[in-house]
């Protein structure tokens, strides 16, 4: 049975997602509940030798609406460890994933004589959790980072069903403006398409780990640029930096238009 009135506004108007409304053969319009939406935003992560930075903008959108200018996307997975997780995509799933990870890390601690979960263990756990929801995926793109037992930076990125690289990565980006940011990071972190000046384009510029000041600049540049070109990115930029001395957070302004 279908009823011939419109849905109240606010539920189906999504810019990058839309509610499927199909015409069945009988000429009736069939509405179906779409359990997903996209709340926009972008995250990035960059590693140095012994530090790692995760950052995300703080705009939360539904379609063309800005719901909030201050919703954070980067989470610490405990107060006394180096684990940080950034999630982007569908806001509700993203928060659920983050909460699940916080809970797992906390449980691990209590079940292992107050030992903290290693970053590689957290990485595998996140993959297992996401894949456990393979047939009703969490629409959340994750970047997980932390320091390993030797104090080296580790960074992992995931798709929504949990595939990731155990080796980790030097940089990652996910979310609505990731396609704008990834090539920038390729060039600036991995030095892709950069050559030693005297070699006439024959010798690639050697890749060296970045220092914290450069990384901080890259993060801010990436987001100011993404804010210019993508409507779902802006308002504020949350930056979490993990070093051997601890975890620090900073929020800076982005353009609000």
């Amino acid at each position, binding site marked *: *049975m279908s*009823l*011939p*009135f*419109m*849905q*109240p*506004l*606010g*539920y189906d108007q999504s810019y990058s997602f839309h509610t499927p409304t199909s015409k069945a053969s009988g000429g009736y319009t*069939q*509405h*179906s*509940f779409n*359990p*997903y*939406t996209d*709340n926009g935003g972008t995250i990035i992560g960059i590693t140095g030798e012994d530090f790692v930075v995760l950052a995300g903008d703080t705009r*939360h959108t*539904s379609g063309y*609406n800005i*719901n*909030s*200018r*201050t*919703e954070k996307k980067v989470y610490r997975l405990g107060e006394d460890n180096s684990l940080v997780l950034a999630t982007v995509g*569908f*806001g*509700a799933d993203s*928060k*659920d994933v983050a909460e699940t990870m916080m809970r797992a890390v906390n449980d691990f601690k209590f079940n292992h004589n107050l030992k903290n979960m290693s970053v590689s263990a957290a990485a595998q756990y996140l993959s297992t959790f996401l894949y456990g929801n393979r047939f*009703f995926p969490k629409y959340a793109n994750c970047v997980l980072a932390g320091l390993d037992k030797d104090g080296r930076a580790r960074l992992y990125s995931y798709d929504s069903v949990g595939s990731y690289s155990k080796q980790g990565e030097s940089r990652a980006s996910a979310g609505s403006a990731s396609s704008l940011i990834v090539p920038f990071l390729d060039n600036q972190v991995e030095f892709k398409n950069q050559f030693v000046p005297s070699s006439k384009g024959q010798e690639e510029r050697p890749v060296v780990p970045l220092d914290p000041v450069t990384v901080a600049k890259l993060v801010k540049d990436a987001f100011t640029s993404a804010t210019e070109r993508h409507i779902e990115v802006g308002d504020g930029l949350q930056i979490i930096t993990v070093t051997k001395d601890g975890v620090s957070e900073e929020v800076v302004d982005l353009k609000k238009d």
Partner: protein
Amino acid sequence: MNHLPEAWGRPRNDVYGTYDASYLQSSMPNQHTQSPIVTGTSVVALKFNGGVVIAADNLASYGSLARFTNVERLKQVGTHTVVGAGGDISDMQYLHEKLLDSLIIKEEYQNDGHHLRASHIYRYLSKVLYQRRCKFDPLWNTLLVAGWDDGKPFLASADLLGTTFSAPALATGFGAHLAVPLLRRVCPDEAAVENITREQAVDTIEECMKVLFYRDARSLSKYSLAIITGKDVEGAAECEAKNQSWKFAEGIRGYGTQVV
């Protein structure tokens, strides 16, 4: 007279045709809500220095029919929290009268000096909404939770998907388009809350309700408004959109009684 339910209101098959009773067969699988039936429109709310103002009109629409004009969509929960609901009215009533009432009763029966505050109630509702969406059986609402919590005003939103966010000025449904720009003019960010007086906040919300009544076809001029402060919750039912001006309508055909 035939008293069987399929005959109600349809006395003569020869005039109206046989009644289509197919929907009465229970061999069909259970259906989850696929769209809302009787709906409420926007809820708007704004923080101010010392509290939060929240308002929602008293209309429940059945499609484009203004079905009930005396529906209360704001609900006081506990001592310093108000939950406002837009979307499906029956789902709202389930939330208000089943879940929230029993939640508070259970909390207060403990009688141990602990009380659920706005942030606690908000988290609970978000979880309920998210769990229901994960069961593909959503509660078709968008909620605003307004309250006084831990010495600060609290305002946050949760919807049928479990999406949650917080801001110093929020509006659901049509209000997200029409009221939010008006609210943000007064309160662009959290820092601005400090400089907003209670009177200013109430005026702004009243203005929003008026604009929504002008431009949202599923709205009503009669609305409820609640002010939550550190002291208590002050409710004002049966508010009326003030200082309306329909002057522009005078020259337009189709408004009011047309002579020609």
